[in-house]
């Protein structure tokens, strides 16, 4: 294995956004340790273990966002349901709706039309209408939901 590429390979365990910020410094530190003959096998294990732990923590945070999104979607859907019942038709955008929420609304006699950037999307193909961007963690909701009473 190419010795020079090894530190970069170990750093792949870390999330990309974190690597973009700290990867250069961390790689420099590993190379300094190696140059001084102080790079230990436990350091390699430490790098991989810490990188994987950061990825796991990132996934946990995203799943928390997802749970919050589903809760927001339910509120959004209930508002849509009420509006559909009152006004016949109402368009709204995210925050998030899952297929389960869409099916729930169908069962209440509400027809849902979905458009992403103006293009109709079959509801059966939609799992999540919103997603978090990995770089910023912001919630992106490109899909517009239209509620109509049956």
């Amino acid at each position, binding site marked *: 294995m190419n010795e020079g590429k090894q530190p970069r390979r170990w750093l792949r365990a870390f999330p990309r956004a974190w690597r973009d910020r700290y990867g*250069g*410094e961390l790689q*420099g530190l590993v190379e300094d*340790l190696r140059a001084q003959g102080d790079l230990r096998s436990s*350091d390699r*294990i*430490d*790098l*991989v273990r*810490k990188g994987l732990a950061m990825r796991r923590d990132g996934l946990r945070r995203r799943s928390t966002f997802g749970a919050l999104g589903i809760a927001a979607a339910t509120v959004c859907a209930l508002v849509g349901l009420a509006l559909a019942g009152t006004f016949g038709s109402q368009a709204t955008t995210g925050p998030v709706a899952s297929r389960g929420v869409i099916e729930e609304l169908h069962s209440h006699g509400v027809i849902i039309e979905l458009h992403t950037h103006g293009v109709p999307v079959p509801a059966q193909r939609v799992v999540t209408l919103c997603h978090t961007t990995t770089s910023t963690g912001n919630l992106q909701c490109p899909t517009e939901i239209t509620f109509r009473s049956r």
Partner: protein
Amino acid sequence: MPDGDRSTLAGPPLLVLMSLATGSKHGHALMKDITAFATVRLGPGTLYGAISRLEDRGLIAALPADDRRRPYEITPEGAAVLEASIVELRQIVEVGVTRLGMLRRPMRRSQRVLRGEPA
């Protein structure tokens, strides 16, 4: 003692703050200093994990990088958290020393009894 006070630190982040209390340092200098004063060698991943968490919380700040070596300095918020953490640790140590003394007295007495000396 503060109950579950989240403004205090322990483990690698506390060691990093303690090291930066004597002046700005880059990663390798931090690692050497912590090894010297705490006799604990932090792995590079653990060290940078602590650095990133401290920077996220605004407890340390990055200074302009020299090549790939970027020094960090402690912020006023970091100094306050370090002080609170040390106070908390000192209280824990004092309780530990007191309890260790209580533990040793009966042990000495039982050792004397075993040796056949008056208790």
